[in-house]
């Protein structure tokens, strides 16, 4: 099963004089969990933003399932099957946990203004399905008892989980995880690793930006290393770990 | 049109344009220190003029104007202390809505204190019919007063912001309020000061233009819109550009008045405002930081 799900070709992005992403080409095979690591400022989140459509590259292409998605806006990218989570949790704080996850179903449902305003029967069916799917995901993730609580009332770790549930509700093919372990302790990180593996077993390919090396080593099939916008290395975690360039950018030169 | 007529219209344009520029500078001072757009800016001009007009019945004109500026400055400070200072976790939008409420309140207060009659200060020098001849056109000496006072305000503010400690402290607040506070700058005071300063120069401008345009309790809103248009045109926060933009708007208005129906004069600034907001919100002279102005 060596299908290439996502491919970036020669992506370049500048911010003023800063070459934030410099000729980055990566491939993500279907069913894999691929890690993206590198020091702060390496361009990892920018890369995510380029893939997700939040910003446009100045050069290069993003190809998803053999189709170019470079110019698409975030909502269109989402509807193609790419979900993402954010570095800082972006939940809908005043909405309930259930409503948050139901929002994940948005790109898979269709009823619009007119059917909404007239409360047509087809909205009843669709909303019922949306609610049921959302509840079943919450159950799978273990948050069902919080379904009707306001999202902002949950502890931080649970809020993270809600964000995952919401992304999963989209039934994505590719999930972009931006530093999912940020702010989690050892036990929570272990749970997170299990969760990501479980997500992959459901058929979702994952691209994970992370700083936590233990997590990366534990779950990633494949890792790409960025430094100052450039790709330094790519390959299985053990191999990359021994790459002298990679060691240098993390630990520094003895001459520096 | 012959030369004297053109000169006439040009002077009319830059006269009223320099007042718009002063209003815009008032906006910029407060915006630069706080990020708020103060909708009540126009009212400061009117309050200043009305106060001076009333005081003029008891004291000579220069004293009346001086006192009016002082009173309006205090009012500006009070407005900030009472309404703006204590707002916690305020989004910029909420504060703007508050200033809209304040402007309406001030206008209604003026209506009840002074009634809706049109008034004006007497001409500073000469009378309504005295003229000075420049390039064949007959200009009222008051026009020179307006241009002179505006120039002094602008030229006074530049060294103030660049060289005095207070001025630089205000600029520091604009750049990074937290850092300013860490440097020992009393940022809350700076905010109050910015309101007071804007109110003061507004009052002065209102007084000097009063003989030319007359003063009525509800003129503040129209001045605020035009001042805002000028501020945006020059790039919010950029006072030098505001001067240029103000003169431009004034000249365009004068030109429109000369060629078309006078009723369209008001529409000019609004149309320019809408065009600028849509096509170039960073202003003619501002950097193209469109990402900062636009939502997704």
């Amino acid at each position, binding site marked *: 099963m060596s299908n290439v799900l996502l491919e970036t070709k020669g992506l370049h992005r500048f911010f003023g004089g800063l070459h934030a992403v410099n000729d980055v080409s990566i491939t993500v095979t279907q069913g894999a969990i691929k890690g993206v690591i590198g020091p702060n400022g390496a361009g990892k989140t920018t890369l995510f933003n380029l893939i997700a459509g939040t910003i446009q590259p100045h050069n290069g292409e993003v190809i998803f399932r053999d189709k170019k998605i470079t110019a698409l806006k975030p909502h269109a990218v989402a509807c193609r099957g790419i979900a993402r989570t954010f570095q800082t949790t972006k939940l809908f704080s005043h909405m*309930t946990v259930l409503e948050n996850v139901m*929002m*994940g179903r948005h790109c898979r449902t269709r009823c619009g203004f007119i059917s909404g305003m007239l409360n047509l029967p087809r909205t009843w069916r669709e909303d019922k399905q949306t609610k049921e799917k959302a509840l079943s995901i919450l159950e799978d993730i273990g948050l069902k008892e919080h379904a009707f609580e306001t999202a902002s009332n949950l502890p931080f770790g649970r809020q993270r989980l809600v964000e995952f549930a919401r992304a999963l509700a989209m039934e994505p093919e590719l999930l972009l995880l931006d530093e999912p372990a940020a702010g989690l302790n050892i036990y929570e990180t272990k749970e997170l690793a299990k969760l990501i593996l479980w997500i992959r077993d459901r058929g979702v390919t994952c691209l994970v930006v992370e700083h936590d090396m233990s997590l990366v080593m534990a779950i990633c099939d494949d890792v790409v290393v960025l430094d100052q916008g450039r790709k330094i290395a790519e390959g299985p975690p053990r191999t990359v770990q021994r790459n002298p360039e990679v060691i240098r950018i993390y630990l520094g030169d003895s001459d520096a | 049109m012959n030369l004297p007529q053109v000169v006439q219209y040009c002077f009319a344009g830059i006269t009223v344009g320099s007042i718009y520029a002063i209003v815009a500078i008032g906006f910029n001072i407060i915006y630069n220190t706080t990020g708020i757009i103060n909708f009540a800016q126009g009212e400061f001009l009117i309050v200043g003029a009305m106060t001076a007009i009333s005081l003029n019945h008891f004291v000579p004109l220069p004293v009346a104007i001086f006192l009016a500026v002082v009173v309006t400055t205090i009012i500006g400070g009070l407005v900030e202390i009472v309404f703006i200072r204590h707002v916690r976790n305020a989004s910029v*939008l909420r504060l703007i809505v508050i200033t809209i409420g304040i402007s*309406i309140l001030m206008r209604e207060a003026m209506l009840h204190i002074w009634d809706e009659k049109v008034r004006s200060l007497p001409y500073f020098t000469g009378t309504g019919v005295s003229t000075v001849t420049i390039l064949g056109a007959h200009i009222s000496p008051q026009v020179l007063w307006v241009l002179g006072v505006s120039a002094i305000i602008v030229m006074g503010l530049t060294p103030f912001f660049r060289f005095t400690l207070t001025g630089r402290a205000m600029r520091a607040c604009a750049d990074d309020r937290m850092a300013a506070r860490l440097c020992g700058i009393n940022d809350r005071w700076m905010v109050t000061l910015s309101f007071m300063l804007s109110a003061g120069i507004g009052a002065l401008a209102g007084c000097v233009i009063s003989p030319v345009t007359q003063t009525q309790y509800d003129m503040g809103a129209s001045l605020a819109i035009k001042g805002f248009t000028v501020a945006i045109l020059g790039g919010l926060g950029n006072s030098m550009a505001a001067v240029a933009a103000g003169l431009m708007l004034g000249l365009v208005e004068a030109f429109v008045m000369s060629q078309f129906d006078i009723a369209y004069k008001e529409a000019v600034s609004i149309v320019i405002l809408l065009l600028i907001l849509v096509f170039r919100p960073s202003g003619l002279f501002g950097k193209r930081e469109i990402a900062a102005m636009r939502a997704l």
Partner: protein
Amino acid sequence: MTHFRRYIPVIAVAIGIIILQVVLSGTRSTYYMTQITMSAYYALVVIGLCLLMGYAGQISLGHAGFFAIGGYTTAVLTTFNLMAYRDTPLVSLCHSLGVVVQRQDIYGADILAFSPWPAFVVAILLTVIIAFMIGLPVIRLKGHYMAMASLGFGLIIYRIVLGGRIFGQADGISNVPPFKIIAGLEVNGRAAFRIESYYIAWFVVLAAMTLAINLVHSRVGRALRSIHENEEAAHSLGVNTYRYKLLVFVLSALFAAVGGVLLTHYNGSIGPSEVTVTKSVRYLVIVAVGGMANLWGALFMGVLLNFLSLRGVFGSYDDAVFAIILITIMLFSPQGLLRLPKFRTVTPLLSRRANE
């Protein structure tokens, strides 16, 4: 069915309306109905604005402009005398289609003008077109830029109706005929039709509320709320934020225009005072006091405050009162009065949760 629990307040209010009418008729104080009817029409603007501001989180300081577009369009079309053009092909075609009718004006002379229904359709179409044209660029703008742009829009409409001869300039347009909705039912300001107009107005308002409530509880309503809560997240979930904001803007403009049309026919006239900045601010105040994202709160406050204002309770301090209310709300409770803790028992009924 749980779907219909949301309509309980609608039924309750409908019953209340009926009771109120019976009480007023019984105590021979039906004259109050005039202000109540007018307030109901103003409330239509508020409902639309509540969707735009409270749910979609956008601001409009020029909504009175859309009210005016509706009102003035129907006023112009139904009063402009086409007698001089009766032989032109376009006019005679309209005449034969019944779009343009001959009627008597108040002086008894014969005039030829549009009949209210076609005028209504034109007003609605015009509003939608203008709302799209304005919305397309303005929706992109952030916070205070959008506020200023919408303010500018309202001002332009004001200047147009104040300056245009066809709009009656400062005097506005009067002698607008009543609006015959269907045989036997008309929107008419005269005393004989008071009760009829009262019920028509409230029917329209409750219909609008029903549509709004449905929208808020639907997939679109959730999407709007998500845009308000966190636009970036909503965008990443597949919500076309720009399109939704634009559509809500147009929808709210439509509500305002319908209010404008009906009130113009009810009053028999319209003037530039309907389009002032203070009017637009007033609508904003009402939405803010009512609780931003609280449809029933907005309706209640809209009717209450407008009623008091129309009956002159605030005297010459009318605008000042609204300004004070606005400042107070913004200072102390930007979520609106009806969200303060002591009202909490009331809000579950009045709020818009999806968890039925």
